[in-house]
């Protein structure tokens, strides 16, 4: 057993863990933070994406011990009294259907927007390449990220945004 200290969604935890315990299982089974789901076993799908020190990481590819000393944000820590602009945009743009990929997709999007506050459609598609969705065909996810960028003030409205706004109304 190895002692780790992590802050998850603003709460500090100190736990003894098996060295082989995956971070996602630590979050789900030890801390009960089941908002972060597991979709595969080869780190392809990205469903389990969380932010580790503000960078997106697939929590199935990290051991809990590797997270020692870090600050982790899961989907359950995103809303701060009110929904994060990305959560709001996913809802408004109908960027989710079954919702299984959604936590990971939103956290990957937040990481993308922290690096590039005004991403083009192509850049969004590149940025989310590590996260699979089987329901939406990605169309509304791309639109949601674009609209979150506008809402967060980092992006200038483009012609495409205007078209999307008209379609959505």
């Amino acid at each position, binding site marked *: 057993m190895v002692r780790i200290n992590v802050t998850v969604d603003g709460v500090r935890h100190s736990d003894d863990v*098996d060295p*082989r*315990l995956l971070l996602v*299982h630590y979050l*789900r089974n030890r801390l*009960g*933070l*089941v*908002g*972060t*789901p*597991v*979709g*595969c*076993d*080869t780190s*392809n*799908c990205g*469903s389990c994406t969380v932010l580790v020190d503000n960078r997106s990481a697939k929590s199935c590819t990290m051991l809990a011990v590797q997270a020692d000393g870090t600050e982790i944000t*899961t*989907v*359950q820590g*995103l*809303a701060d009294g009110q*929904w994060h602009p990305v*959560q709001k945009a*996913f*809802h*408004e743009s*109908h960027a*989710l*259907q*079954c*919702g*299984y*990929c*959604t*936590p990971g997709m*939103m956290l990957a999007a937040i990481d993308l927007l922290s690096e590039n506050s005004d991403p083009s*459609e192509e850049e*969004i*598609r*590149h940025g*989310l*390449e*590590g*996260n*699979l*969705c*089987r*329901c*939406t*065909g*990605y*169309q*509304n*996810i*791309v639109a949601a990220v674009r609209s979150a960028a506008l809402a967060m003030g980092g992006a200038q409205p483009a012609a495409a945004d205007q078209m999307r706004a008209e379609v*959505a*109304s």
Partner: protein
Amino acid sequence: MTATVDKAESVLGQPMRRKEDARLITGQTQWTDNVTLPGMVHMAVLRSPMAHARITRVDVTAARERPGVVAAYTGTDLADSWSSLPMAWTVSEDLKTPPHMPLASDKVRYVGDGVAVVIATDPYAAADALEAIEADYEPLPAVVDMPAALADGAPLVHDDIPNNRCFTFRQDWGDFNATRARADVVLKRRFYNQRLIPNAMEPRSVVVAPTSATGQATIWSATQVPHFVRIFLALNTGVPEHQIRVIAPDVGGGFGSKLDIYAEEVIAFVVARKLGKPVKWTETRSENYQATIHGRDVIQEVELTATADGRVLGLKVDLTADMGGYLQLLTPSIPLLGRYMYPGIYKFEAHTLTCQGVFTNKTPTDAYRGAGRPEATFVIERIIDELAAELSMDPIEVRRRNWIRHEEFPYTTVVGLTYDSGNYEAATARALELFRYDELRREQAERRDRGDTVQLGLGTSTYTEMCGLAPSRWLGETGYAAGGWESATVRMLATGRVEVVTGTSPHGQGHETTFAQIAANSLGVPYDDVDVIHGDTLTAPIGLDTYGSRSLAVGGVAVQMAAQKVVEKARALASHLMEVDPGDLEFQAGAFRVKGTPGAEKSIQEIAFGAFAAHSLPDGMQPVLTADHIVDPEVFSYPHGTHLCAVEVDTETGLTKIRSYVAVDDVGKVVNPMIVDGQVHGGVAQGIAQALFEEAVYDDDGNLISGTMVDYLVPTALDLPAFVTDRTETPATTNPLGVKGVGEAGTIASTPAVVNAVVDAVRPFGISDVQMPCTPERVWRAIQQGRAAGGPAPKGTIAYGGPQTATTAGGAE
């Protein structure tokens, strides 16, 4: 658009934001794998590493000694605890349904067939202990290839089923041979709808809590069909249905793969009752690839007869369909679900369909989004393009000459189905306009003239489909064990809120939103006051669940009918309370008003409180404003549409890139356009994935080569284009909402549109087909073979670039 619509304004047809989203975007979702119960233990399944072998020994003794292990069982240990898993569709008299035990004890029949289970206090301990199980096998030759499986002398998957033939089926409508005798053109093609892995993002999971010694149990399952699961467990174990509660909590996608009764549901049920402890099993993704059903895998030999001016006469289709190692719930019916769809939207004189089902040593197949209808649509839409090429006609023009014209509805097709409504001209005209078809054809010709490395191809699919599974009588006639009705309850509560209970069981479709819209519209109450309850056999005891694009066209109609019954009861009570004749009351925007007397009104929510308090009811009226309704439609629903795809194919690398994709669908009346668009986006994405990316590949020994997400290409955001979607609206005339199904339409439509585009791009190289998925390697090889066989088609032929005909320029006829 905001999520709240004024009470007076109809919410039907509005893009209401989804009620489901709040929990899904905040991580408050209840997936089955999230369920944790006191004393819960974890199950892991030992699976066969061989495709075909006799089991000579399975010894779990050492596994039982491993730390944390509570129990371990072989198939033999539990053989008396269960019977065969169910198969519900007897498609022919000669159908062979071999026993399918939850754990194999004599032979294994595919890589992934379960042979033993370990139960431990921790999932890691359970997985570790699998390694301590000693399993010995005597390998047998694997049966992988369908034609080889049918050959005399082939190894037998099931010892008593000769030639591995599961069933044969033949149906003739009209005289196909007579059309051949008259035809100017006879086209023959062999298509292959490859094997696909459904890939719902949530892996399957089941938790069973045995809550009493009498056998009462609660089962959480990531299933599309909680009601089916309850019926089967009751039949299989003798436990009365009221003691079995099946909950499908939030379910993360299904696409048909969760429309089944799976071995692990039964094993977990049996083991939990044996141990008296809650048991959880959740599959890994790699396990999902082996042990959750696959889709498609049908060889299609096609023959089309036509006249020289492009009129189709007859269609003959011979199917060979891979069942896999066993029959799951609906396995043999899937290739035949498309049996009536091969003629598509065209006026044929004759159609012959044959089908044989084949056992192989592969994962069982079953329903995958579209289930039989994508296969049919692929054939008809591909061969119509081939006919156009053969006759040097534009593919749109060939379709126009043969499709059912809008004034001809209702139209009974050659196979006897009556399409109630449709307007193929309007959908096609709109699609051509959005696509800029003429411009793209011109650009295609220019690129061919220049001999560009990157060539342009245009593909069309003017599909229809039959959905809204449903008519119980039809289902019975085709050998299905159950019906296709659906139930709803609408209750108005004392608080004024409305509960809608549906027997459908959503897993991403948004029923909590759309069904609330239907009820809010009928009752005239605010959308925010309506809650939809589903997916739990305790709270929604009567239902037949969600698949086959049935939820709205069957379940939604049941909601509408139940809500109307509530309004009628409310009218009687309003008349009593307001002391007026019911005929003098009008009901509008949720209130009963006395005609011609302004101000005299009572809202339906006030009436609901009156019905709850029951202080003053008319004689004979029961308290509480509630109504049930069960709908069993007499016919299917027939959505249709025109999908157009433009691809750029790099002739040096074979890489295909989708340049534009236009989908104009007609799904009748739309309850929520935002959700309909979402269904189309996702459906089109899955159809494109079949056309270009996905295939479950087995080696000669029956090993699944594409056994993980690393090897099986589920498309990412980067692999897919932005789609242009639009709709025409021709209401269904066969249900009161005027709706048609939409869940499968995009998948059914898109695959042939994309492959037609790929073939169109490279047809000048003498290519008339590229097998799916049209990977760069396959396209490149096709080009090399085409060049070797004689090279580009001559200028001036349609294969070269195609002359534009006057009637292809758009505009409804």
